[in-house]
């Protein structure tokens, strides 16, 4: 498989709450620190990327946040304007009235129109080689297939017209694994794992984009090996717990209970991990990121995650 960072367009998706935006930001930060001119694009304009990277707000026009790291927020109306300016070469912009409303309208009627503008803008950045790598904080698992397959659906729905001819080169970029890949972020929990496996299957069937990697976030550390676990069980016996408490100067019961919770959580998650590995094509690399037992979030977290990603990517 083509190494992740050798591609030019990475869509990062995942079930809500698994750390999709964190991983997208960390991936972009890591790439930019390794000499790639990187654009990170947030697709829902909520400002999360800016918040995570601790910079001011981002807009449709990319801004350089850190050396070699640019960020933008997707805005479909702005994308449409840019598209019209680049493609129609007629001074229509001022003359088509309430563009946003019209766009809303057409997009509501024909799903795919909005998505194709978004994907079109991203592919455009790739085609024009403005950056070495474009990382997209893409919609969550429920919506990503709709976005990635939009050029195809539009191709099927729209028989003639400019959009039709435009979707051909988009499809070229999207279906080329040397250029485009999908990264699915998950956590080792039941629903995220189920969704990841379902998504992997759907992506293969309904889109032309290659699943480039699965990132497993918040992997818990293993506490004990087997013999250590036996020792732990002994320690949990009343008289030994009391003795340990006496030696350590307090009640050790809560500590052992906490350790048991940690072991159980880890074990449940290990089961889901196994299921995930078995359910995903063996040639798709999985990257494991540790659970962060930290107080902070924001740029420090992103740096830490970027570091872990680097270790997993072998650099």
């Amino acid at each position, binding site marked *: 498989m083509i190494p992740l960072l050798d591609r030019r367009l990475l869509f990062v998706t995942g079930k809500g709450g698994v750390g999709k935006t964190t991983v997208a930001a960390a991936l972009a930060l890591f790439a930019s620190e390794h000499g790639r001119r990187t654009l990170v694009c947030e697709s829902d304009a909520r400002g999360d990327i800016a918040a995570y990277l601790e910079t001011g707000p981002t807009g449709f026009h990319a801004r350089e946040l850190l050396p070699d790291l640019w960020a933008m927020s997707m805005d479909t109306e702005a994308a449409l304007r840019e598209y019209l300016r680049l493609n129609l070469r007629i001074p229509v912009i001022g003359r088509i009235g309430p563009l946003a409303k*019209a766009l809303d309208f057409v997009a509501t009627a*024909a799903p*795919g129109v909005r998505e194709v503008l978004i994907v079109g803008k991203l592919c455009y950045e790739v085609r024009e080689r403005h950056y070495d790598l474009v990382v997209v904080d893409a919609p969550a698992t429920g919506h990503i297939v709709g976005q990635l397959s939009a050029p195809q659906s539009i191709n099927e729905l729209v028989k003639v017209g400019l959009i039709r001819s435009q979707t051909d080169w988009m499809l070229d970029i999207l279906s080329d694994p040397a250029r485009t890949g999908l990264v699915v972020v998950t956590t080792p929990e039941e629903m995220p794992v189920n969704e990841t496996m379902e998504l992997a299957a759907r992506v293969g069937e309904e889109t032309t984009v290659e699943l480039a990697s699965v990132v497993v976030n918040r992997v818990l550390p293993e506490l004990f090996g087997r013999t250590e676990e036996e020792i732990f069980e002994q320690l949990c016996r009343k008289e030994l717990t009391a003795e340990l408490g006496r030696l350590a100067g307090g009640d050790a019961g809560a500590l052992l209970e906490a350790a048991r919770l940690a072991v159980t959580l880890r074990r449940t998650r290990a089961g889901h991990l196994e299921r995930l590995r078995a359910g995903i094509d063996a040639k798709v690399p999985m990257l494991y990121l540790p659970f962060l037992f930290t107080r902070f979030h924001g740029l420090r977290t992103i740096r830490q995650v970027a570091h872990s990603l680097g270790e997993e990517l072998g650099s």
Partner: protein
Amino acid sequence: MVRHSPHDPYRNGSLSGLLASREIVVVCGPGGVGKTTTAAAAAAVAAARLGGKVLVLTVDPARRLADALGLQGIGNRERRVPESAFTDAGVKPMGELYAAMLDTKESWDTLISHHAPDARTRDEILANPLYRNISGRFVQSHDYIAMERLFEIHAEGTYDLIVVDTPPTRNALDFLDAPERMADFFSSRLLRWLIVPYRSRIVNVASKPFYQVADRILGTQFLSDIAEFFILFQSMYHGFVERARSVQRLLADRRTSFIVVSTLEVVPLREGEFFAKALADRELHLGAIVLNKVLPGYLRDPMGATIAARLRDAAGQLADQLCSRMEGADVAQVERVLAEVGSSYLDYRVVAQREAEQQSELAGPPEAFVSVPYFDTDVYDLEGLFRLGARLWGD
């Protein structure tokens, strides 16, 4: 954290009052926090303890949970969860539990059949390529159809309580605003404007810059597909708008309440708070906040931290002293176990403290605040649902 108030019976960290007094409980919140499971558990415990007929209308349950509720088949039909499933889980139910899954496509088709003025219009709509696209993938249709289906089931009057799980949305507000937006959409002037040239059969698309641009981008065929679709749809306009308004009214009714589910992780909690505020802005009733996967309180005990640090830092010494009292234990291994127990406690303590702090910042106390601890295993059967349900009940 349970907030007590002697005057408010709901504020005892229980959903029991809410489940007993409302006809509809909508469970919402960010994705990945256990929304579906919470909805199912609330319905299960209500059926078991309150009696009557309780329905859980779920959107996207995990397969094992779907199996537990007897929802293997795809489709909209409500199915009763057999009483044996309750007794197998050691519960004698007072009432009956039903479950149904939301099938967007099927619900849309039903809706069209319901509102279409005649069979021909119905068939034309169902066959229109845009309709097929819209009903299958319409981003907002899922949100709307969930509320629409709720309205329909409620109107039938079969159930004493309907607990609704909400679809994961890109934007938390989508489904709240879906009925309103649907009404707006069909009464939009733009819609009428867009289809004028097609309706009057004067395909003079060059007459206005908008049509010109639209035509160049989308092509005439596509535009006329859109127009045809909306001309067909307009025949159902009044029915649709009226229905959307009724759905809206039902959500705002005193018989309906909302539960926001979240975890104490940063992102979900922020979304949860946003949701609570959105409900308030719309004057919808926030009945409870349920916090899932809350770490146990003993992790925040300062004494625990002191001992944990001792275990971590003086593990060797402690192991030496303990070893003689243990069977076949190697000192080095005991040392590792003790150090691991100590540092693991301290690790989790950081998270527990961070989360407690966030919880204390939660604005706007609703009538009930329920926190649910981490369970050892995922909830995927009725027994698990009852365990969770008991927590929600405030046992």
